[in-house]
């Protein structure tokens, strides 16, 4: 099978300090991969390579090859806007725009030139259904997104990402700011979305990684310590550091 994302010997520097060291991981389509590791291990930085969100930080230097759908995304003429349409992202803290629920989901379409109202309506409904939020908000689409609960806001952000038909969804600790019930809903959602999207998720919650992911990669101090099928990695870690981390001895 062909990989949808590949990274080959990726190094990343913030000024002088090196945040990622020689990371090589490839991702299969329609899988969920969890990136785990203690705070500051580089897993979020690694995730942000795929939609080039690291570009927003001053003084970042990246070496190595990163491809998405077969294309090197760090070329001079890479269309970053188009890349970000293909590679959606859900952030740690729900960040809906101060607009109505409808306009939040429609935003990604509007900025990409879709303004036809019937298309927008159709797409907004479809995305909200996919994000398992439609039944809760269908009667108040014109209300401000800020009136939703934290968990609903996060699912709105997922719907917003789905609306522009990405093939990959990056999730940066999407449930860390949510209560257990909302977390469970998000996890269910991830499981369902897998059939259509490739998902890469950063999480601090090992149980969550165990529940939602097919593959897991363990990062420590900017290095990739171990990667593999989630079950195997959790039951039978090959590296002592991985073992120590997943048994709670550090991190």
């Amino acid at each position, binding site marked *: 099978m062909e990989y949808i994302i590949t990274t080959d010997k990726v190094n990343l520097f913030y000024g002088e300090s090196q945040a990622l060291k020689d990371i090589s991981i490839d991702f299969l389509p329609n899988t969920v991969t969890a990136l785990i590791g203690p705070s500051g291990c580089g897993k979020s930085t690694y995730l942000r390579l795929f939609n080039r*969100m690291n570009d927003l930080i001053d003084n970042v230097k990246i070496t190595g090859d990163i491809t998405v759908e077969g294309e090197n995304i760090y070329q001079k003429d890479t269309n970053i806007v188009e890349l970000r*349409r293909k590679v959606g992202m859900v952030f740690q803290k729900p*960040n809906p*725009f*101060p607009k*109505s629920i409808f306009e939040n989901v429609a*935003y990604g379409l509007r*900025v990409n030139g879709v303004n036809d109202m019937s298309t927008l309506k159709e797409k907004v409904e479809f995305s909200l259904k996919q994000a398992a939020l439609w039944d809760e908000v269908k009667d108040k689409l014109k209300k*401000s997104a800020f009136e939703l609960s934290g968990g609903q806001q996060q699912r709105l952000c997922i719907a917003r990402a789905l609306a522009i038909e990405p093939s990959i969804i990056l999730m940066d600790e999407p449930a860390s700011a949510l209560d257990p019930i909302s977390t469970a809903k998000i996890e269910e959602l991830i499981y369902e979305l897998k059939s259509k999207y490739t998902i890469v998720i950063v999480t601090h919650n090992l149980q969550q990684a165990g529940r939602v992911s097919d593959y897991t990669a363990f990062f420590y101090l900017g290095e990739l310590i171990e990667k593999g099928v989630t079950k195997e990695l959790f039951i039978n870690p090959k590296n002592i550091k991985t073992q120590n981390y997943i048994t709670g001895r550090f991190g």
Partner: protein
Amino acid sequence: MIISKKVIRNKNLKEKVAFNIFRVFSAIVVLSLVAILSFIIYNGISVINWNFLTQMPEDGMTKGGIYPAIIGTLCLVAGSMIFAIPIGVFSGIYINEYTKDSWYKRFIKLMTNNLAGIPSIVFGLFGMSLFVNTLGFGDSIIAGSLTLGLMVLPVVIRTTEEALKAVDNSFRHGSLALGATKLQTVRKVVLPMAFPNIITGIILSVGRVSGETAPILFTVAAYFLPKLPSSIFDQVMALPYHLYVISTSGTNVEASRPIAYGTAMVLIGFVLIVNLLANALRKYFGKKVKMN
């Protein structure tokens, strides 16, 4: 017990004393404002009527109204804002959204801060030299407006910058991650959120422009001109300068006294209305941003 009752009593006493000191000082602020306002109103209210607001000055400015000065000040406010708002807001956006932290950005900020520190009379002098003489506008609304606009530019830039800075980065990232360009992100997400605060900054600078005397002294203000301007190259009277003239060098300073207080009252009233408007607009747009 380690903590003695005396210490606690002492603490409470100090708390009370400190509180009362703060209270007295803030009362001084309020009282002096009230004193100034009531002084002006007490002395000026007798001349305020419809005719005062809508008629030309008469009898060597000892009688009649201040209509041309009101219109002149409105012209100058409008003119300076037409100049300062686009330049100031766009510069603010550029500084906060587009420049990375570099020597260039620091240089622009240093310059803006220095611009804000220049005394207004120096702006007047500069305006006279550049707009009135070199560019040949003469004493005119356009020369005065440009001078005033230049003076409040730093205020507009700074408030725009601060307003944009107050918008959390997570909103920018959310928008960019959806494939929006930087321009779309600024226009559709960041600016609407910063708008209420930008409006406040702009309106405060309106207050400043309407009250400044020094910058218009050499660039536009007429001593006595009992007619309305017909083009932007005309001179006008203006409220603060009129106040200065009839208080110090009018034909009969004593006889003009009530008119001076009346003029002051109109000026204060104008600034007050502008500030209330700023508040109302901020609330209105603040709500609109959320509901949109």
